[in-house]
């Protein structure tokens, strides 16, 4: 059928075909719709691996135990045993290869995260021995006198 009226229709259909062909190659093969449909069913299978292979940085206190057994066993007998090593010593990552030395947080603010006096009822904070940083030796690092691995052992 030859008609100038229908010509735009062929152009339109051609565009649709081109877009569908481009879509076929451009959209990754793992892109699909699950049984939950267009609402919640999107999935990108290829992206799951990316998140699965993300680098683990916090290794847990068990990782420290064998080489630093002295500090570990001391800590385990103190009220601070609940605190993981990496909370103060920063994440181990691949220590001792990388980083060879961990950054230790010795600031007063670290201790005050728990020990600043906030006697809030219905919060675990009320049960922690309070230390008023403005009255208790201001300006001096806590670890100058207290042993964080065993705070009950007495002053240094």
């Amino acid at each position, binding site marked *: 059928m030859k008609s100038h009226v229908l010509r735009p229709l062929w152009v339109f259909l051609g565009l649709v075909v081109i877009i569908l062909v481009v879509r076929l190659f451009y959209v990754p093969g793992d892109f699909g719709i699950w049984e939950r449909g267009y609402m919640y069913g999107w999935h*990108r299978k290829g*992206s*799951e691996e990316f998140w699965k292979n*993300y680098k683990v940085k916090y290794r847990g206190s068990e990782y420290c135990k064998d080489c630093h057994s002295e500090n570990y066993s001391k800590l385990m007998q103190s009220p601070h045993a609940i605190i993981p090593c990496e909370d103060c010593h920063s994440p181990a990552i691949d220590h001792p290869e990388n980083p060879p030395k961990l950054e230790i947080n010795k600031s007063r603010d670290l201790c005050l995260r728990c020990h600043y006096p906030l006697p809030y009822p219905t919060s675990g904070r009320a049960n922690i021995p309070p230390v008023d940083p403005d009255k208790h030796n201001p300006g001096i690092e806590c670890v100058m006198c207290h042993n964080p691995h065993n705070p009950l052992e007495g002053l240094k």
Partner: protein
Amino acid sequence: MINRRDFLKNTVKGIVGVTLPLAAFEIIDPKKLFADKSDKADVRYVFLVDTLKCVGCGMCVRACKLENDVPYDAKVTRTWVERYVLTKDGKVWSDSPKGARDGFTTSKIDLNADGFKDIKNEDIEKAFFVPKLCNQCENPPCVQVCPVGATYQMPNGIVLVDRTWCIGCGYCIMACPYGVRFFHPVYHTAEKCTFCYHRISKGLKTACVQACPFGARQLGNIKDPNDPVTKVIMTERVGVLKAEYGTKPQVYYIGLSKEVE
């Protein structure tokens, strides 16, 4: 001209036709049913937060930022801790300075532009800390609104973002009723808590669970009846945030209060 007999016949046919559901014409595919049953994942991750144990030390926030390479000094975080102070005059004060990355080391409530509010201990009626993170909703609104399908829910319930496919339009950030999504300042894509999928898939705890000295945070599998977290959720009084949104959030709270938003 239609007679009465034909009119009644056609009426009956019409009513039957309209009321028959489309599903009645669908031939049941046994393969599909079988696949449905075997396809069901045996893991569905849930989270349990015990607000009675939380002391607001913020170690979880710090650990999350370092573990997941969320820029440490940027004002964005995947998890945060909120402080709520309810005074005897009926007012509610809450803050979360830097997402509690450095904990709460002052009694002054950070009101941002309105300065600080110091509340005397004797005026406090209730006060507590509430850790927040992605609720990994069963009906995730963030997934629903994504125009390019870059965010998706895995069968284990975790919602992830594909950084290579996200166009950064921000719809998901607006859609989340819990405000857990943000733009990653480096990748310029939507970013959210992944329940540390890289860790839990290796059998490790999430960074925040591991860093918490008080056991206020726990990860569990709701499909395992012997999981301690499942037992708590099934037998104890737990709450979820903004249940009225119908998102079916999967982070459960012990000791939740109505003031928590």
